[in-house]
């Protein structure tokens, strides 16, 4: 009994060290965790890849941050982080959950307005929702928010995974990319593009048509001057 109690006391001490950072997730991520919890691993793996390759010591803009589920990982590496989404409810959740002097959340539509220049722009799971005729506007928005030595990280499900997608995904995904097409679009606007694939949470450089998800890292934006 004594030992049991002392272990409890030790654990209470550990708990005190953890502080109190309780978070109530918003609708989007509460839904995901209830319906398909493993998706959290897949999504965070994409953020970790972006954080490790393109955020260390850099100012970061996330285009389409939703509830900011990736903000803590990106913010761990970035000097400052700005999350933007046109969904005001999601931005309100992000602001409530991830308060940090280096983080800022903005409700805006970056296909229509510009909010500054950043060393890195991250955009995951956005481009597949943009109608093909507005696709160029999306890529322009990315480049227009970059400094001359800027980088971009773009992630989207592979077009080859469409037959396996849920009905909701299929309705929302109006512009699916192959690795080849994504790289072509990025090479029009960047000097260098490095393509990766993910299956579940594993990042690799395997045969592109069999990657479930695509992440491409682009650097050297064309036509960005250092004014």
């Amino acid at each position: 009994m004594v030992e049991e109690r002392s272990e409890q006391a030790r654990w209470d001490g550990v708990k005190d060290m953890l502080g109190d950072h309780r978070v109530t997730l918003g609708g989007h991520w509460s839904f995901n965790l209830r319906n398909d919890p493993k998706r959290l691993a897949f999504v965070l793996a994409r953020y970790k890849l972006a954080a490790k390759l393109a955020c260390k010591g850099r100012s970061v803009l996330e285009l389409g941050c939703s509830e900011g589920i990736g903000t803590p990982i990106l913010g761990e590496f970035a000097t400052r982080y700005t999350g933007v989404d046109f969904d005001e409810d999601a931005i309100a959740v992000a602001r409530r959950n991830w308060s940090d002097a280096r983080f800022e959340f903005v409700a805006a539509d970056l296909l229509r307005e510009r909010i500054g220049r950043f060393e890195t722009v991250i955009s995951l799971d956005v481009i597949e929702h943009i109608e093909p005729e507005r696709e160029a506007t999306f890529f322009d928005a990315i480049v227009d928010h970059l400094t001359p030595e800027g980088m971009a990280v773009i992630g989207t499900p592979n077009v080859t995974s469409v037959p396996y997608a849920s009905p909701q995904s299929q309705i929302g995904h109006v512009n699916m990319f192959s690795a080849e097409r994504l790289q072509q679009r990025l090479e029009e606007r960047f000097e260098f593009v490095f393509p990766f694939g993910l299956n579940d949470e594993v990042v690799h450089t395997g045969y592109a048509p069999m990657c479930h998800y695509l992440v491409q890292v682009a650097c050297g934006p064309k036509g960005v001057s250092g004014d």
Partner: protein
Amino acid sequence: MTDERQTEWDAVKESMQHAQPVELGRHVGYWFAKTPRRALYATSYAKFAAKMIGRGKRVLDIGCGEGLGTWLLAKECGEAQGVDFDAEAIAVAEANWGGEPNCGFTCGDAFELGDGSYDAVVNFDVIEHVYPEHADAFLDGMQRLLSDRGVVVIGTPNETAKQYASAVTNAGHVNLYTAERLEAALRERFKYVFLFGANDEVVHTGFAPMCHYLLVVACGER
């Protein structure tokens, strides 16, 4: 076994029989005899580099040894040239892959090749053998061989793994890098530096001090 299946296999065999036999020289032969998994790891690093470089490119592989990785790069990227100062290794490389139109080898000093026209310059397990006082010249030399739109890929064991290395390995390693030092050396020369780690054949972006091997991709010459 039915005769039919035997006949099918004979057809498969026939289709493969005319491939020129590949010879493993002293170095790759040593891997297969003593540390066979090294062949897996080295091939995995070359594949990673090939994927980062992309297709339709001209690649220079410095310290190519017996040229297995050079051939992989030629096959995946379009064209590759291997260079090594070890004449015996180059002879093996030449015998195996020298007949391929998109793959060639030179014995000698890479930095005497001279022109800055390669789309990519790679080296694996080379820089840890370069004396620290020559390391800057080595990196400068790589940069000179590269076109201004070129990509560099360097692979080298992590300094933190030294304690586990064999006596043979440690005897040759005079310039081991930590991730920080490797990244810093490349940042002086390139605008963009991407650091990866590998444990066995798996290339990843995990905590650098625990990576057994370091792979760095750099581009955008300063």
